[in-house]
């Protein structure tokens, strides 16, 4: 059936089943492939998006539950990679294979909106849902601290 | 189905990255630059024994086989010799070699004019990427040959990835064996 979704500020009318996972509607129907599929059971964080500013695992979110809400994906974080997290991620060359990094950055953005100056402990517990098989965790931590510094300037 | 957004270059036009930049090279099995096809020493010794000489003139015999095989387990190959196969002028023997294999001889056919056709097909096993050689002896005693480079790739990981480590190990063991021998000699 036809549903209307607001993604990164633009509204899209999509003809999908109500119980379709939001992840695949964003990727296949709307065509924003920055949000990634990693596990399908909300255990790896690669599909993290923002729904009304809160982090959500889009692989286990029904598209019907996101209607009427403001959805933000990695592509919508900033028009030209100038969000403090994107600047910090680039400055520290944080990604290796990069596949999990959209989810890491979106989870980190939700963390920074809750905690302006997170400690290592805050980062560890809040980001524990996001797996990185390349093991870039040290740089992720450093980049979040750096992003907090940039945001505070 | 939403088309690829226009900002990202549609890749139908740009095939194979830079292919357009150069003329499409037709694949010609590397013609023997020299006047003869020179086989590695192990194979030329076998050829010497079989044909009485290992000096092959390029030509008359061709190898028809894929230039790339996913695994070397069973690669189709056809030996073809340009010969009228008459009583006076026919092929007497065809041999095939793969230096990369533990057993170099791939094929060895004795044929006479009654065969009617100087063409033999078979399937061969190949250990790794490298040259395959074919040699033919004609009834007038002349020897002809060709070679063909085939890529056998089940994956880069399959090349002996531990070659450097085994070499280091061998160097260490040799050095120590020497040291022990020297110590024993004193």
């Amino acid at each position, binding site marked *: 059936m036809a549903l209307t979704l607001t993604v990164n500020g633009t509204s899209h009318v999509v003809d*999908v089943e109500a119980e379709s996972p939001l992840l695949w509607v964003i*990727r296949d129907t709307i065509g924003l492939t920055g949000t990634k599929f990693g596990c399908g059971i909300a255990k790896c964080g690669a599909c993290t998006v923002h729904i009304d500013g809160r982090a959500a695992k889009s692989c286990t979110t029904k598209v019907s539950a996101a209607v009427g809400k403001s959805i933000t994906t990695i592509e919508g974080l900033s028009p030209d990679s100038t969000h403090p997290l994107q600047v910090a991620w680039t400055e520290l060359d944080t990604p290796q294979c990069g596949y999990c990094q959209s989810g890491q950055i979106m989870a980190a953005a939700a963390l920074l909106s809750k905690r302006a100056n997170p400690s290592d402990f805050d980062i560890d517990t809040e980001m524990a849902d996001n797996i990185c098989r390349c093991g870039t965790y040290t740089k992720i931590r450093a980049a979040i601290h750096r992003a907090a510094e940039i945001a505070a300037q | 189905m939403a088309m690829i957004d226009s900002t990202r270059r549609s890749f139908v036009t740009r095939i194979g990255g830079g292919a357009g930049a150069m003329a499409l090279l037709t694949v010609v099995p590397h013609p023997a630059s020299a006047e003869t096809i020179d086989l590695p020493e192990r194979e030329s010794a076998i050829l010497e024994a079989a044909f009485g000489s290992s000096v092959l003139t390029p030509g008359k015999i061709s190898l028809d086989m894929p230039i790339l095989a996913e695994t070397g387990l069973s690669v189709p190959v056809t030996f073809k010799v340009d010969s009228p196969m008459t009583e006076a002028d026919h092929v007497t023997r065809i041999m095939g070699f793969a230096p990369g294999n533990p057993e170099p001889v791939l094929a060895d056919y004795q044929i006479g004019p009654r065969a009617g056709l100087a063409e033999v097909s078979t399937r061969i096993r190949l250990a790794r990427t490298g040259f395959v050689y074919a040699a033919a002896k004609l009834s007038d005693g002349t020897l002809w040959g060709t070679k063909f480079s085939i890529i056998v790739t089940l994956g880069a990981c399959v090349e002996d990835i531990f070659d450097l480590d085994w070499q280091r190990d061998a160097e260490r063991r040799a050095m120590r064996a020497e040291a022990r021998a020297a110590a024993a000699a004193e």
Partner: protein
Amino acid sequence: MNIHNVSRRKFIVTSATAAGGMMLGFNLPAQAAQMNANPWELPTDKEGQEVNAWLAIDPDGTVTIRVGQSEMGEGVFTSMPMIVAEELHVDWKMVKAAYASGNRYLRQKAEDYQVAAGILNEDHQVYRRMGTGGSGAVRRSRTFLQQAGASARERLKEAAAQAWGVARADVTAKDSVLSSGNRTGTFAEFATAASTVALDVEPVIKTPDQFNLLGASVARLDTPLKVNGSATYGIDIRLPGMVYAAVRANPVPYGGIDSYDADAIMGLPGVIQVVEIVPGEGQDLRSGLQPAVAVIANSYTRALSALDQMPIKWSATPNDGVNSRDLFADANAALGMPGAISVDEGDTAGAIAGATTVVEGDYQAPYQSHACMEPFNCTVHITDNRADVYGSFQNPPGALAVVAEQLGMDPINVFSHTTFLGGGFGRRSRNDEPRQAAEIARQVGRPVKMVWTREEDMMQNKMRPMAVARFKAGLGPDGMPVGWHARVAGHSITAHIRPERIENGLDNSLLAAVRNHPYNIPNQLVDMHVRNSHIPVHYWRSVNASQNVFMAEQFVDEMAQAGGHDPLDFRLKMVEDLEDWSLVLNTLKEKSGWTTDLPPGTGMGIGISEEFGTVVGQVATVTVSRRGQLTIDKIVAAVDCGHLVNPAIAEGQIESAIVYGLSACLAGEVTISGGQVVENNFDTFKVLRINEMPIIETHWALTGGDKWGGLGEPGLPPVAAAVANAIFYATGKRPREMPIVHTDLSWG
């Protein structure tokens, strides 16, 4: 007792800069991407004048360097262009990168200047090696990449010299500018002339002491694409008119299909057809197709939900009864019998029999999964006499060959397009997914993207083999070993994928880091057994060394303890005739503050091994509570890979290998029950998360010279041994089994 093993780091507030000296990269502003989001395409829309197969120069001076290896996080899109640029003397900011073409690799032989320079020979392909594995990117490509840069540089200088009527020796090339006296010109101006210039003698490539770009931690070219979601991975491919396939094979690998009811789901939304994948007769089991069924629909989610609802009856298989417990029992039984001999020096049995002390130790390690973050996928588009295959390939020519073979097409007409890889770790060099996608595309007759669910990815994974080992050594009166016997019974990758390579039961790769351990012991015997099951096995990050070092280096500690030696000094004594091993061990001793005199519950442990030409030693510091709670506080690594191309990327690889190794030794494992994989998603298959990340320090102990060691994998094997040995000093208990969570570490 709740023996839950986790790891943690000491919570001291660290500012960004103090995080292990991470701020190595140049602090560039968010720069523009140096490559196309579709990495197989040219970074600029201009064709550029090709000077040789490795580089083309645009009119605006941009130099596009082709990269033969696949980018799966190890930084080849930066390190390989750096090697060419080092010789080319191009302005690094003008360098962009793109993949070399798999199809061109197939059609073109080595270029003349490479053959003339004696770097390649005539039957090598133009890009020589397009597979990524064995940590071989830099060490196996360095020479011909340097030659490509050097020969292009000299041709540009020659073109300018001829234009200015001066000798080539009077022309210098620096930062993309050619100059002689007061005359200057750009690379772009002379590119066309350079492409046809012939040199009588090809330039000699630089030696490390002459490098100026190599050794600098320049920022990665692909990072900008990976922070805004624009980088294209295999799973992201979208082609006009493309349909989607959700695939499922018998959960028991290589099992068949009894029946499936396609009609039951044909009416579901978006469903187009159901495709059955049947292996060709005589098609070889391990590289051919497995029986599977795929639902084709106009979106992946519809294909998958239809597949979930389609009744499928999997055939029974002879392996339905196979389980890990029995496989281990079978392997352990083999340890009792002599195996195929790999090393036999001196009289080992005699030496052990006459020894003052005899030490024995058994160990075991389970199957392990790659679990790349990007689940398996592949897209194939067949037109009349051409096929295009898109995906995350570790071996593009292999993928191309597989598609050509499956479609019965001449490889010349098949084009592979490699995307970014969401992790490879060896799994993506098997090329089973392009074959499956090609078969689906053949039946569907439209461009189709096949995607595996995480469950399918885990259950049809080609595993890191399981293995068991028994060590036995005799120590002399001085506590030093006089005889050392190692016997490994394991599942052999070579026996599985290249059975013809096994001669009288010997597969040396199964003995990686055991056969070539460095210790100077007079009498040595190493033998092995191949005990494969139906579970497919393949290359995994650091291959068999990932379990062999866990076993061998723990046994070295057991020998040290039995002989009354400090484990680090014990090792130093046995490698005192090896400069690189001694340097690594001494660097470790100094940088880690090594001591075995620690309060109960805390311990330091060491593990060291050499793989792909690089020696890596690690010291782990752990704390274990009385209840058995394991905490990994710190890992200090010392590395000798000879030379560094990009230190920041290299350090990232060592850290990455340590984390991947920790995941595989703390709690992650793959067990088999009822013939199939039990851990089929991240709820049951445990991987290290950010809150379990120890502090990691990497120190370079480079011996230079002609040593060019790999970096993607050698950092992994020592970590499991270092942690296990540290646990022994903390608790007195020795975890002989991977993963360590199986051992009750409670003490006191």
